């Protein structure tokens, strides 16, 4: 009897996996249509992100299927491509940031995507590096806070060391998060490497948490555990649209602000290259850019799209820092080594 129960249980398990697998496979829709494999990070491809709307729009006309394959975060996308091998490789990659470019170009050959027909937002055009990967959105990194909570808005990185902010700041770990890496680079560029080391040691005494990623830090912020955290100038837009709250603000610092640019690319060994190029064109079109802006709460790279939205047009324009040598992998490794030393107390 017990043996029967066990066999039955194993069978149920196997059947459950099969059913689940079939459900997954059935998501590929029409098997006779070409399938464009797109690697992206979770918050782009999930149902709240821009991915599904872009997919639906594209599939209306392309006679093809877009298949999103997720990675938990952009840092893992390139690792995933490497391990999956060329036969399972993607036709398109979405969500690499400027720190990933050198590794991406070193690891894979990429098809050229033309930006010639895209009128670029003048605020970002000069910062776009020469690369076969092209940007599709961008954001300005800033500290965000609630107007009702701060004694006085912060105006510089040094203000983060104010006594009223002891145990009231959450930053992200540069070793496991893109915004954290942006913040580390920001401090080093603003202060120089030696002063940055001193500053970061002092800041570590001050912060409540160094979280593994953006969502944990922002969670502490929205739960009012901390008063400020590193996010984007567009973050208050979310609270205005979704919650009708005007209480949130991004604060301009005298040092200038780093920009985060997100890129898409088409690997040279793509199988559905033409369709991938068309999907890239859709993402860079006015309609695609609007979807990305509204779903990701990031700025479009195409000129004029943000201006059409009253709320996005009203986002304050902060002085930004140009992209520099910090993009080099070796430089970033040095910065992360410094961070590693600081957090070890060495």
């Amino acid at each position, binding site marked *: 009897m*017990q043996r029967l129960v066990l066999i039955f249980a194993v069978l149920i398990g196997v059947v459950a996996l099969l059913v689940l697998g079939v459900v997954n496979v059935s998501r590929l829709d029409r098997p006779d249509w070409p399938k464009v494999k797109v690697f992206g990070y979770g918050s782009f491809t999930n149902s709240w992100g821009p991915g599904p709307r872009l997919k639906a729009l594209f599939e209306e006309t392309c006679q093809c299927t877009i298949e999103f394959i997720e990675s938990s975060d952009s840092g893992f996308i390139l690792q995933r491509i490497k391990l999956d091998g060329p036969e399972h490789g993607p036709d398109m990659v979405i969500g690499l940031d400027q720190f990933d470019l050198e590794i991406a170009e070193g690891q894979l050959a990429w098809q050229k995507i033309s930006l010639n027909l895209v009128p670029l937002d003048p605020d970002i055009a000069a910062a776009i590096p020469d690369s076969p990967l092209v940007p599709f959105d961008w954001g300005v990194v800033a500290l965000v806070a609630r107007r009702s909570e701060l004694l006085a808005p912060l105006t510089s990185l040094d203000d983060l060391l104010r006594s009223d902010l002891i145990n009231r700041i959450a930053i992200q770990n540069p070793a496991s998060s893109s915004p954290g890496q942006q913040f580390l680079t920001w401090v080093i560029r603003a202060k120089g490497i030696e002063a940055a080391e001193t500053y970061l040691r002092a800041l570590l005494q001050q912060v409540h948490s*160094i979280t593994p990623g953006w969502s944990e830090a922002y969670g502490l912020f929205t739960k009012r555990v901390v008063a400020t955290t590193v996010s984007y100038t567009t973050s208050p837009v979310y609270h205005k649209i979704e919650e009708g709250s005007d209480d949130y603000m991004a604060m301009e610092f005298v040092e200038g602000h780093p920009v985060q640019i997100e890129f898409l690319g088409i690997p040279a060994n793509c199988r559905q290259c033409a369709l991938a190029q068309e999907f890239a064109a859709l993402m860079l079109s006015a309609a695609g850019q609007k979807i990305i802006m509204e779903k990701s709460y990031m700025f479009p790279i195409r000129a004029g799209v943000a201006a059409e939205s009253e709320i996005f047009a009203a986002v304050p324009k902060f002085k930004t820092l140009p992209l520099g040598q910090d993009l080099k992998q070796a430089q970033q490794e040095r910065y992360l080594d410094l961070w590693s030393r600081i957090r070890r107390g060495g």
Partner: protein
Amino acid sequence: MPTTWTKKLSFADGSLVLVGLLLIFLLSPYLLILRFLEAPFRWQADEFIWALRNSLVQAFFSAICSVVLGVFGALVLVSWAPVSPVRRWLDTLMVLPGFLPPIFLMIALLSLGSEFPRGVIGIVVAHALACFGLVATSLARRMEQKLVAYSQVGAVLGATRLMFIRWVAWPLMRKDLASAFILVFLVCLGSFSIPFVMGTGVGITLEVLIYEKIRNAGAWGQAVSYSLAQSFLVLILVWPRQKMLNSRSVGGASEQIVPTKAGKGLLQLLPMPMGAWLVLIIVGALFVSYLRSVYLGFSRWEALQPILVAAIAPMMATFSFAAAVGCLLALTALLTIYCLPNRRWENFLMSYLAPSTALSAFAFLTLGGASGVVRLFLAAGVLVLLNITALMRMGLIRQLKDLRLQMRLAEILGAGRALTFRKVVYPQMISSVLYSSGIGAVWAAGDFAVTRLFTRGDTMLGLVVQSLASGYRLELAGAMSVVLLLVSAAVFLAFLGASYVVDKKS
């Protein structure tokens, strides 16, 4: 009959081949990833030592705190008879924090406010809260197996509680305390999500450092070498202790629990019924904190409603996937048990530390598989790999030890390994195996780190919760975690039901 009785593995009964296959499975992440290693890689000794020290310190103090709290919890539990409803409720309340996927405990702890400590202290507190219930229930059971008769005699002879603890309970329970310590130490050393979130970036452990190495620059060489070094060190640290514990064992079969009036504890000299209030306060505080976080999500009902509707398919998928992982865990546990008792195999199981989550998941990803079914099998395989030894250590190996007398007798009477397994071990173990697998299934239901890599889109509830959290919708993520909780409960109840049915039949 000493519990040190062991049986050689052999080709004839298939146990040698089976152990070989299980060893390959447990070590497969290293074997699979080897072909991607590019020499030379940077070995940063100071960084490794720092993270290893953090790992060892947090695991050591987590284990100490868990055992201390666990002893206290056990004294509370033994105040009531095992069949008493109060005892069952307390049992459930205590194991709940460790039994649920870590995401729930972390939501509760993070919602406690800015005063909750972070870094190593935060990790230790979180681990202790997660593990003390498991220690308490297992110690309570052992106390009742070992101390009941002595307690009755002691009470008649007028011994005080202190005298009983000093002269009877401590010498007899020392080995169990050491086993509980090692069990929690290994669980905490291999823990990823709690140190990842609570470590605040400055108290990071080796598991988290390995994740960082893979994420940042695909430093597979460093990641594998750190992971191997950690596993090897643990093996060196734990194996001799394990051998010593085995060699000092006395009293093989479990002693019979003397039945008493329902509701009354079996140990007259140890109970601490008032401690139940403290347990209720600790677990109640976590529960209220969690509910506060959930309330914010439900207060945005309009935004939540479409997400709930869209979550019907992920609910079913989560249930199926978790059930499948539970079944695979049960199968793997039975295969593992088949090869016991064997001292080396048992020592390996008690000392083995699974490779880090990220390393294991990426290693299995290299097996490819374009089809959804294959990928799901691979995801299930990773979760089985990560959880099987913890489940074995949580009570199955101990329970098997209690059957050694019967197994030895069966052998003396001429039964082979297969027959002994079929007629002696299997009927008495299957219920516990299913119960443990149910716990593993619950952990699988709450997973998002592994399933994210193997599935497309938000096909599981854990993924839905994580997606919401990473896209500004944190309070909705809290609300959706309730749905995940319900599905997890349903999966566990299914296994509990199966365990109950099998128990009645055997």
